[in-house]
């Protein structure tokens, strides 16, 4: 069964069309990486899923039921924009409030466990307003995890997290999906981090879904390239450009040849033209480059 199924979703804010017929399918148990430029409609879609704004048209189903079904919605955890906490209350009291909201039995035990999971057990007595951005983000994740949700909707949860925070986030999300059957929708601009955990992707642009794919499909779609280094970079580049259609230099100073048959073919070709290759490897483009390529293709660049 699909955790989320969206058909022809539209949303207008006055004259502005934020979503124009968006379709989205999130399988149960997936970590769905929701990608798109600023203003592409990611947050709007997430707010619509959570019922925080009202759709103009279309259909949203959560676990086969309408998204307004109170029983389904009671099991949705959310972190959209900033965590919804009262600044004057302590971290503990904010979590206790959310536990009361979710009718959690034995809230103290669950809160202690979640605070330990997000490595915030030492900050329980801190006032929320005195917490740093990264701490607030972790508290937001803790709030979303309370009540063992079946669906987690996270909007830019990695923002403000340090390396340790990102690692914790990865561990937590992997754990809730693999061990507790939770489904996660996560939007982020930190694609490198998203790539490490997502099992499915949805790329949205201009209020429409450009494409949806699994991590395996993305892996297959991502082109391989040959990356090499020589002492005469400009001469090498000219030579390669004469034979191959796409040659680029990356930020590390490697020349990338995208349409080469094999590394041996490139080495032989350069050797025949008097160039010695000092280093060579084959690699694949990542999600970030795939996304940039896709966007460039859509813009006709």
């Amino acid at each position, binding site marked *: 069964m699909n955790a989320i199924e969206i058909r022809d979703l539209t949303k207008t804010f006055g004259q502005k069309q934020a979503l124009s017929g968006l379709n989205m399918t999130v399988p149960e148990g997936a970590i769905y990486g929701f990608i798109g430029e600023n203003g592409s409609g990611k947050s709007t879609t997430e707010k619509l899923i*959570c019922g*925080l704004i*009202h759709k103009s048209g279309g259909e949203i189903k959560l*676990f*086969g039921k309408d998204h307004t079904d*109170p029983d389904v919605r009671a099991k*949705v955890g959310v972190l959209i924009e900033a965590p*919804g906490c009262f600044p004057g209350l302590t971290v503990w009291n904010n979590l206790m409030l959310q536990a*009361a909201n979710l009718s959690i039995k034995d809230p103290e035990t669950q809160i202690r466990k979640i605070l330990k999971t997000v490595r915030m057990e030492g900050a329980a007595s801190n006032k929320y307003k005195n917490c740093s951005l990264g701490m607030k983000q972790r508290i937001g994740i803790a709030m979303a995890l309370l009540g063992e949700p*079946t669906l987690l909707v996270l909007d830019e949860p990695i923002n403000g997290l340090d390396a340790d925070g990102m690692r914790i986030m990865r561990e937590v999300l992997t754990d809730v999906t693999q061990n507790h059957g939770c489904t996660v929708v996560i939007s982020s601009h930190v694609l490198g981090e998203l790539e490490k955990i997502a099992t499915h992707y949805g790329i949205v642009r201009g209020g429409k879904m450009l494409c949806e794919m699994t991590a395996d499909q993305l892996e297959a779609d991502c082109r391989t390239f040959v990356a090499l280094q020589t002492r005469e970079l400009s001469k090498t580049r000219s030579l390669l450009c004469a034979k191959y259609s796409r040659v680029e230099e990356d930020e590390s100073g490697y020349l990338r040849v995208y349409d080469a048959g094999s590394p041996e073919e490139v080495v032989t070709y350069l050797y025949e033209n008097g160039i010695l290759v000092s280093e060579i490897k084959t690699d694949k483009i990542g999600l970030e480059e795939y996304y940039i390529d896709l966007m460039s293709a859509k813009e006709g660049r």
Partner: protein
Amino acid sequence: MEKRFEHNGFGKRLGSMLKVDFRRLFTSRIFYIIVGACLVMPILILVMTTMMDGMETTDPQTGEVSVIEGFDNTWQIIGTVVSESDMNAMSSMGAMDGADSGTDVAASSDAGAGMDLMSMCNINLLFFGIAVLVCLFVAEDFRSGYAKNLFTVRAKKTDYVASKTIAGFVGGALMLLCFFVGALAGGAIAGLPFDMTGFGIAELVMCMLSKLLLIAVFVPIYLAVSVAAKQKAWLSILGSMGIGMLLFMMIPMLTPLNATVMNVGLCLAGGAMFSIGLGAVSNVILKKTSLV
């Protein structure tokens, strides 16, 4: 296979929402400040006006001398006694005019003789204080972003409206009771008489009961304005006070010191009507507008 979700009825949902609201109410500083002010205010009013009673002031421009009149009786700060002839006069003057006549009645009544400005410095002012409490309470939900957590897991907005109405009512009732206790203490400190001419203990209880039930008329109004104004507390406070002002003058009429079961019944019916009617309005506002 279809995923099974635990069914939560209205009772359970309301119960958990009430837990949130009461936890918030009783852990928020602003609530204790307001309730504390309600306790201290009547003491200050009664003691200070008694101290200034009979003092002469001269207008520097006209040279006119006026005498400051304090309270003659502690119960004046709670309400006024309305006689039958006053009620008839009021009903013939119409609803809005009746508002002014509420003060006139006070002036002509036994317990409320010579009140004028003093009649405004009484317990009825608390109905504006309740507006502040309700508006700040609701606005904080939206300002802090907690509304996202609330409404994500609450598809039915009825829980929120019902719970906020109950919490607002309880908060308002505590404010009213604190003011009453403060009035008793203030009267004793100022040495004012507790003269119960024209009413008895039973009527006084009915009067307080009517005032308590009348809170249920005002809270839904403030709640409807607050959910429309969302995080803009200033707008909801102004709007609530504006609308509250229109109904303010009915308070002395409906809740006199010599109130009867009829007054209690009227306030109960009004409270129920406003809570259900305006509760539905608040519900529609929440359903039709963006919650973030």
